[in-house]
């Protein structure tokens, strides 16, 4: 269980997050969406303890205050940044083993358990054949699996991922998402994830948190949050929402001519929306 309450972050004299609160149950998956500059990455970095913050972050009842020992925090929260540094000459095994840093003694060698966890993760993510390969020789998709493996090797109950699929094509994005979903079902991992692609958010997450200007704009199941008027208001995009088999599907469409758009602007506002029925289509017309 991950609980974030009244989280505030100041960066360079500017408040970037204004009291964000959210709770993700054990094994739950929360997607954080929002336009560029909304504070999504900052929220994740605060949860991972990488920026100074006020307010509280709790994992399984354990409070992670800003001064919390880094190793203790790394055992509670695993963090995957938007673009991970993959040292090109380091092997996959050595890279995944870095995930065990917070488990073995500070200056000491890895233990037999560290090696077994690494082996389990490498095997589970289909990297066994690549274990001795330098990271520089991996494809984008393989590299992202290595990053995920390193995060899983931390054996932290919470996995925080900042746009992990940004540099991947559609197939590899899906692969990474499916793997993450399988892992959380298998191990009860709690996932906090930022994503630009609203469809991925809608398909995989149990709940979506829409962040705007460092505040929670809406927060709830994807069907409730992803409303054409909401998307139009916060992203400035015109979309239609189609009910898909795994949640709503967001389809960007060309805006209507201005006159028609103004005529309909007052009618649709953000708020609790009813669940779209299959084959029913809504738009911000």
């Amino acid at each position, binding site marked *: 269980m991950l609980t974030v309450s009244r989280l505030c972050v100041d960066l360079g004299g500017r408040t970037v997050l204004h009291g964000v609160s959210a709770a993700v149950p054990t094994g739950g998956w929360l997607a954080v969406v929002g336009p560029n500059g909304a504070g999504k990455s900052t929220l994740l970095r605060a949860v991972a303890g990488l920026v100074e913050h006020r307010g509280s972050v709790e994992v399984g009842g354990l409070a992670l205050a800003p001064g919390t020992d880094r190793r203790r925090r790394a055992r509670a929260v*695993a963090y995957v940044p938007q673009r991970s540094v993959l040292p090109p000459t380091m092997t996959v095994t050595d890279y995944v083993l870095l995930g065990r840093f917070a488990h073995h003694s500070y200056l000491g060698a890895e233990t037999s358990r560290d090696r077994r966890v690494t082996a389990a993760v490498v095997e589970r993510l289909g990297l066994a054949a690549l274990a001795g390969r330098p990271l520089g020789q991996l494809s984008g998709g393989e590299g992202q699996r290595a990053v995920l493996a390193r995060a899983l090797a931390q054996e932290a109950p919470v996995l925080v991922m900042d746009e992990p699929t940004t540099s991947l094509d559609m197939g590899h994005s899906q692969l990474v998402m499916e793997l993450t979903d399988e892992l959380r079902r298998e191990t009860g991992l709690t996932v906090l994830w930022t994503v630009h692609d609203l469809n991925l958010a809608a398909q995989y997450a149990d709940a979506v948190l829409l962040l705007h200007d460092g505040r929670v704009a809406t927060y709830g199941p994807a069907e409730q949050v992803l409303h054409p008027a909401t998307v139009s208001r916060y992203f400035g995009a015109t979309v239609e929402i189609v009910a898909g088999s795994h949640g709503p599907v967001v389809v960007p469409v060309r805006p209507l001519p201005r006159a028609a758009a103004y005529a309909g602007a007052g009618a649709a506002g953000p708020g609790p929306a009813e669940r779209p029925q299959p084959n029913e289509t809504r738009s911000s017309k």
Partner: protein
Amino acid sequence: MPGRLALPDEGTALQLQPARLRARHVLPAVAFLLVAATASLVTGPAGLSPFGVVEEVVSKLPLLHVHSPLGPTGSVVVWQLRMPEMVLGLLVGAVLAVSGASYQGVFLNPLADPYLLGVASGAGLGATLAIVSGGGTGSATSAVPAAAFGGAVVAVAATFALSRSRHGRSTASLILAGVAVAAFFTAVQTFLMQEHSSIELQAIYTWLLGGLSTAGWSQVLLVLPYIAASSAVLVCSRRLLDTMSVGDEEAMALGLSVRHARLVVIGAATLGTAAAVSVSGLIGFVGIIVPHAIRLLAGPSYRRLVPLSLLYGGGFLVLADVVARTALSPQEVPLGVVTAFLGAPFFLVVLRQSRKLT
């Protein structure tokens, strides 16, 4: 527990091959060190027979009962001239190489060397001040190590103080502050040199170009505690350097207090390098050539690189010293010239390779 996979047995885990220091890495390094040490002991102008020197050394080992063929003069040459020079070469080479490797790890920059933060220019200014204030006399020369050591520590402390900006201290700001401090200290040193006579200039140049030829046991004992402490800290930090290789933010997320670890590593490397240059002058390129050559041999992991740098660094500098003493015998080539002569082309090879990687 959430987030945990079922674990395989130990046998499956053993199929993974994490980077570790193994006998096949250590034995060649030790052999190289012994060859270099022997080569250093048996060469010199005294005309001693190489076998005689080896027997003299072996005769001092317990339980072997070997009788030395050398007379008292030969014995003094071996134990009071050649041995301290060789040991000092080992210490200086080892600490320059291990500091270079550590700096490359901390700054994530393959071209970082132990002089990056101003050690060389600080030591240079310190030594210059000592020589010019004493007018190039013997008393001035004896003050050089302390002055050089002090100058080096002051320069790095200045770099640290200046690199702190409103947003904290980044490796980039440290490097830039190091460039500024080095330029300033070098400018002052150049000014002082211009103001003084050729006797002093000669002494300054001799020091700047580096060498081990004045080495005696007192110098070895002077620097041994610093170099031993510095090397011990760096060897203990080798896993931290591996963790740092994924960048500050990810290393912090993995549980490493990066700021603290960086401070410890830079502090230890600086102290060791300052001690080394205080007695040997400015010997360049060891901190770059040796770690990169080891990367080519044993891979990039700092778990291997750091301990191997100690062994190969020591051996390399001792061999370079043999070349310096014999290449134009009886004239001696400055040691810094020999390492630069070998190092500059190697540096270019590394530069080309690192371009390919980025």
